[in-house]
């Protein structure tokens, strides 16, 4: 090759950049770089504000509860002490249910379980901001939507046990619920697929001049899926009435959030490329989650289109019953998480309001646990994955199509049903 005159300086060979989390097993967690604005510091835009009017909100964190447990700033909403006590109860129910189901999995009563520890406020507060007829397109870590929506917990357990009363007849892995009447879309095992489906559902509501809205859910890791990008294009293009939630709990199994986020400042800031108003919220602050969810839901319902909400939170438990987080992250990291525990924080707020006491809380914990245990007994009386009455093998052949085609009828007979 001919010598080329070049104005290039000498450059070292290229190296691949692979981001690493700040803390691995054995390290001391350090969240000092993690910028947390004061509670009440972030402004509340008008409902019809454009994405450009609120660019900063994709980089800040909306917070309502301060260190003293007081609700402060423009996002402090009008939830009554009774509403707040109900919210606390939902989160406590979810935590008790998690505890019992994790144990049940360890006892071999089911194959698998996924808990919500540390993230209870996200789904429990969000559900309260929706109206009947709205539709969530959730992932596996939003059972709080069902609990706060009043779905019978026994049905959830029957699903987890794949027993005879499992509404899904044993066809789905534990926790992949479906509950249309409670605004809860059937959960897929394939990450991210529901995001664009939610946009389609929201578009349909607009096509029918309905007043219902959709809510899409995804974890920080799964935002890297193409479906999320497509969903943002569609939502932005058609101004779909949807709230697009990203739960950033810092971890996707063993992979820290920086791997999926890449060079983007925050997950919320991705919305800017699509012209979608995008905000970040303290996911461990029940009041902040509720206020932001209500604002975004109202925006969608008023025809102002999609909103992206990134919930900044921490997955305090393992990824699933099959996961051992001590193998990839510092054991003290959860305790060092600067946004605290959502149940503790709401409890403190209620105490500040003189609507609750430490004693009342201990008593409530016991009551909630008793309630969950009683429900668990009822479910286990029907059966677990390993005992009692399982769903029939015949159920596997039903519902593949509305009417069973001849080839499946043949196969069902061959199987002996």
């Amino acid at each position, binding site marked *: 090759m001919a010598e080329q005159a070049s104005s290039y300086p000498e450059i070292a060979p290229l190296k691949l950049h692979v981001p690493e989390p700040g803390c691995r097993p054995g390290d001391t967690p350090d969240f000092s770089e993690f910028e947390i604005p004061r509670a009440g510091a972030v402004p509340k835009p008008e409902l019809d504000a454009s994405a450009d009017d609120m660019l900063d909100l994709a980089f800040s964190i909306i917070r309502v509860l301060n260190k003293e447990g007081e609700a402060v700033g423009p996002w402090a909403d009008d939830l009554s002490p009774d509403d707040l006590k109900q919210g606390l109860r939902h989160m406590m129910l979810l935590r008790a249910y998690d505890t019992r189901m994790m144990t049940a999995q360890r006892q071999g009563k089911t194959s698998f379980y996924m808990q919500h520890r540390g993230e209870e406020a996200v789904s429990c507060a969000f559900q309260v901001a929706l109206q009947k007829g709205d*539709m969530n*397109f959730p992932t596996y870590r939003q059972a709080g939507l069902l609990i706060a929506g009043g779905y019978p917990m026994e049905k959830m357990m029957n699903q987890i046990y794949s027993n005879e009363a499992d*509404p*899904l*007849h044993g*066809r*789905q892995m534990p926790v*992949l619920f*479906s*509950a*249309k009447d409670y605004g809860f*879309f*059937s959960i*897929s*095992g*394939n990450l991210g*697929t529901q*995001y*664009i*489906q*939610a*946009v*389609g*559902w*929201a*578009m*349909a*509501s607009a*096509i*029918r001049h309905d007043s219902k809205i*959709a809510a899409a859910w995804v974890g920080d890791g799964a935002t890297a899926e*193409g*479906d999320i990008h*497509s*969903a943002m*294009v*569609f939502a932005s*293009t058609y101004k779909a009435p949807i709230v697009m939630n990203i739960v950033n709990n810092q971890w996707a199994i063993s992979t820290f959030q920086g791997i999926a986020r890449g060079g983007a400042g925050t997950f919320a800031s991705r919305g800017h490329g699509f012209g979608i108003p995008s905000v970040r919220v303290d996911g461990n602050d029940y009041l902040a989650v509720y206020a932001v969810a209500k604002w975004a839901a109202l925006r969608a319902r008023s025809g102002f289109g999609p909103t992206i909400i990134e919930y900044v939170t921490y997955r305090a438990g393992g990824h699933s019953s099959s996961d051992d987080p001590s193998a990839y992250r510092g054991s003290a990291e959860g305790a060092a998480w600067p946004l605290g525990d959502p149940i503790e924080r709401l409890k403190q707020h209620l105490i500040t309001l003189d609507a609750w006491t430490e004693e009342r809380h201990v008593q409530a914990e016991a009551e909630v646990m008793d309630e969950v245990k009683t429900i668990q007994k009822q479910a286990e009386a029907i059966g677990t994955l390993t005992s009692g009455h399982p769903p029939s093998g015949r159920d596997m052949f039903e*519902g*593949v*199509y*509305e009417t069973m*085609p*001849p*080839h499946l009828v043949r196969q069902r007979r061959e199987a002996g049903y």
Partner: protein
Amino acid sequence: MVQMTMISAIQNAHDLAMEKDDRVVVYGEDVGFFGGVFRCTAGLQEKYGKNRCFDAPISENGIVGSAIGMAAYGLKPVIEIQFADYMYPAYDQIVSEAARIRHRSNGDFTCPMVIRMPCGGGIFGGQTHSQSPEALLTHVAGLKTVMPSNPVDAKGLLLAAIEDPDPVVFLEPKRLYNGPFDGHHEKPIVSWGKHELGAVEEDYYITPLGKAAIRRSGEAVTILSYGTMVYVAEAAVEETGVDAEIIDLRTLVPLDLETIETSIKKTGRCVIVHEATKTSGFGAELAALVQEDLFYHLEAPVARVTGWDTPYPHAQEWDYFPSPQRLGQKIIETLEG
């Protein structure tokens, strides 16, 4: 009766379906204002408004995924993937989602939608505008797969697919859009204008899914075909003079096993022809079914004539395409076997 091309028959089916049921919405790349690159949705936006027929971003997973959400809401989306070759970006949504939602939710949510895709070669589309991906679809529990071979069926089957409560993939052999194919690519395209299967009933009618059509009855051998290959079969029969029975399957899932069985019990011989590649193609499924169910009625091994196991070539398109000569030779071998 009006003489229609397959394109106008498909357009007409859309029109009637949208008129009959206001839950039917139609969208896809270039489908709205322009009426689709093949014009299958021409005029629909003008007639039904942008609320019911519109252009979509170039995002096949977005088109299919959003349609799943619309179907779950209670609409009946009829969507177009511009070429079947571009279903792969949407394959996860088709296979893991649309096909399964009814089963996994125990009927809580359903997916009554139609995914239309122009498929097959014969228009110099090269590797990425020529494929017939039916085997990748028929393998999936929960999906129905349809491939018409003429305007009359295209209209009736599309209306049946739109009425169907489950997701249906509707494959349209684009070589047949403007006219039938007699197997001789050198000849100019004959239009549907004078063909009996181009004479389409103007009113709403249904051609039920899961029912094959016998295009020619005969006693000597059964030819199982669908799409463009129906015409290759006709040409091969004409050239060989063999008294063959030609079956046009029309629907691959659910399959009309009864018609296939009755025919092969009569003829005792079976040749399968399709345009897609051979290995693990739908012909393998047909051959296995015939062998399992009708072995003792067979007087010769089941034979297959297919596209080669290569990517669909551009300049060698007609070498790839199963020709009437190739099929004819196989028919003779089967008769001698």
